[in-house]
């Protein structure tokens, strides 16, 4: 009979635990794996310096973070979504439908996206956006005609590049990094090679042409990586010809294994990114649910701590790790103090 007693007590224990769990005293964050390192640094420092418990930071990608953010208001939804791109219109709409109306957008700084390969691999040292587009676009311009991408080696379209098989590991579509890669590299390259003009001449509307430009070839030369940069790194380790897309901070942490290529003649570094010389950079954000401020203890304090000069400023720990400090940090700070939601209305 002890089993009956055991199971009853176990059920009672569970029920008890569940009822006491109603009030959450911890900030919950989820989203971009690019922002995750920074968020975890801030969360650790926040726990060490304040009397609030350390926030929980989960990974998963910008899109999945924002999706969870938009599930609704309440203690079993997350308070903050990290994103390596700005929130999209349709996400704002989805949020509003679930009752998440006042969203505070916080820009924490900038991050560079770099193209890196094995230290001992082919000499991928200098790229132009056009090279990347010619290598990875699904339709490219060859001899004045738009054709399915015929290039097998980098040297096929640019004699300056090594005669090595094209093999690229790019972030999957759930990553915010992918969007930046599409906008700042593929689209630029598409325009630079004249492919976009040729597509529009062929009767495509501008939007369709843009969509065609950012379409990546599907014949195996380009591989979508849905995991973190460590997965990309492992793929690069196994493929001497491979080239991977990394965040600047990740690359800097693994410089003994990777060499970086310049983009448009500029080497990526915190300096070139902050001046805007290095073309492929993007702002990093997090989004705060205004309805949770005052309900979840420490939420507002965490948000303002995140963008405080001591943390996100040029001499703070985030810069030391690889974030490019935002020159307009003080405006972000004021916006958090005033709890100004997106779109200006309140």
């Amino acid at each position, binding site marked *: *009979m002890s*089993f*009956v007693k*055991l*199971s009853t*007590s*176990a*059920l009672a*224990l*569970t029920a*008890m*635990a*569940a009822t*006491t*769990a109603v009030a*959450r005293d*911890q900030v*919950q964050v*989820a989203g971009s*794996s690019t922002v*995750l*390192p920074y*968020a*975890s*640094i*801030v*969360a*650790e*420092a926040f*726990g*060490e*310096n304040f009397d609030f*418990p*350390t926030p*929980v*930071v*989960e*990974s998963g990608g910008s899109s999945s973070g924002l999706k969870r953010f938009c599930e609704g208001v309440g*203690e*079993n939804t*997350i308070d903050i979504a990290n994103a390596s791109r700005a929130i999209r219109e349709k996400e704002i709409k989805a949020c509003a439908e679930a009752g998440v109306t006042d969203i505070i957008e916080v820009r924490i700084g900038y991050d560079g996206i770099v193209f890196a390969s094995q230290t001992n691999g082919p000499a991928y040292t200098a790229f132009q956006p056009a090279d990347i587009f010619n290598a990875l676009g699904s339709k490219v311009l060859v001899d004045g005609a738009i054709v399915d991408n015929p290039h097998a080696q980098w040297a096929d379209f640019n004699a300056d590049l090594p005669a090595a098989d094209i093999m690229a590991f790019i972030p999957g579509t759930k990553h915010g990094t992918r969007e930046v890669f599409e906008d700042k590299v593929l689209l630029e390259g598409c325009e630079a090679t004249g492919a976009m003009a040729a597509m529009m001449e062929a009767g495509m509307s501008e939007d369709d042409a843009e969509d065609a430009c950012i379409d990546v070839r599907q014949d195996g030369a380009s591989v979508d990586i849905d*995991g*973190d*940069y*460590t*997965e990309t790194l492992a793929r690069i380790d196994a493929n001497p010809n491979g080239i991977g897309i990394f965040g600047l*901070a*990740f690359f*800097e*942490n*693994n*410089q*003994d294994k990777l060499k970086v290529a310049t983009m448009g003649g500029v080497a990526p570094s915190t300096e070139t990114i902050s001046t805007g010389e290095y073309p492929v950079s993007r702002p990093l954000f997090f989004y705060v649910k205004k309805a949770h401020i005052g309900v979840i203890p420490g939420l507002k304090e965490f948000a303002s*701590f995140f963008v*405080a000069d*001591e*943390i996100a400023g040029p001499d703070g*720990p985030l810069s*030391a*790790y690889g974030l490019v400090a935002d020159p307009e940090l003080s405006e972000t700070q004021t916006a958090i103090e005033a709890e100004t939601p997106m779109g200006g209305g309140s």
Partner: protein
Amino acid sequence: MTDASMTPTDAPKKKSSLMAQDARTRKRNAAETRFRMYGMAAIAVGLLFLVFLFTSILRSGLPAFTQTVVDIEFTLTQEQFDTAESKMLKTGEYQKIFVNALSEQLDARGLDVAFDAKAIQRIVGKPGGTIRSFFLENPDRIGTPVSFELAASSRVDGYFNGRMTRDTLVDSRFLMATDLDLVDALEEAGIIGGAFNWNFITGTDSGVDNPGGAGLGASVIGSFFMMLVVLFLSLPIGVAASIYLEEFAPKNRWTDLIEVNISNLAAVPSIVFGILGLAVFIQFAGFPQSAPLVGGLVLTLMTLPTIIISTRASLAAVPPSIRDAALGVGASKMQSVFHHVLPLAMPGILTGTIIGLAQALGETAPLLLIGMVGFVAREYPETFVGGFTDANSAMPAQIYTWASRADPGFYEKAWGGIIILLLFLITMNAIAVVLRRRFERRW
């Protein structure tokens, strides 16, 4: 048993002897020898993989158990304490005080190497939090010299344990080649050196810029509370279900259907249980995210079929004569089960349970979906109930998290975590073997 030799009259021409084998016997014997060789080769390959696995785990993971530490004694004045506490980033202030104290001591020793505060900053890790929490707990030590052993930065740690050499070092703001001269000088002076990394076993997770402060302790506790939930739910439910199905339930289409479903459930990928857990326990029932309670519930679902199947097998192994004897002396059906059959089946049930628990302990996939992967295992639960409801991670989830961080120091920590996880699993399986050996009855 060659039949040729047994019937000599039928084939008088064929001379066969027990001493000389005929062709067929040789062929059969050769086949047997070959089969044995295949078997041995298969075992050898298996062992080879095992050895390869263990050496690679130990080689990559053992460095996580040692830690390069900076051994230094310095005094924090009341004034410094008050200033630091008035700042927003208090730990950063303590870090500065520490770096200044170290520079002054190095100056006083007259080291032969040129250095600046930035170099020291790169060599020491992130000790601000440790120093602050020490002085908050021991305010009476302010103003007196205190000796600290503080973790050095992960790059310096890598230099000491061979993960990185002077040749592979690329100058960066994390560590410069010139810093290594200073590190060597510090080692000669006895300020920097190796020590056993207790923090790795007892500590909590740390931020990505502080691999030296990372520990598995909190997630071990998270795993422990999850296993408590699994044990106290799946054992009674599983045993009750099996007893009913095995001893009481009528054999009909319904029970057949249930049986088939239980076997099928045992084969369902664990990620499916994670999705179920997210939908039912978190979104519908409103349980807290990242809580070991939810993790335990999900793993209970996963473990239940394993326990039911093994319990039913051990119940069925109890000979019917025992039941008959009990019924014969007037016991009720229930008495015969609980007084006689169940105690005899107990070793098998416990073995099955422990193996089910070990399986659940190493499971990561369902935890991905209920928020236990990420920067979670930062704090120990304060109360017993809090152990179930406070956000925490689990050992395999923590290992996964570390493996995906940029700093190579964390990769090493992930391997170290694997060693600890393996120790737990080996212990549990050993207990299961001992139980089986000790209490198993044969009829």
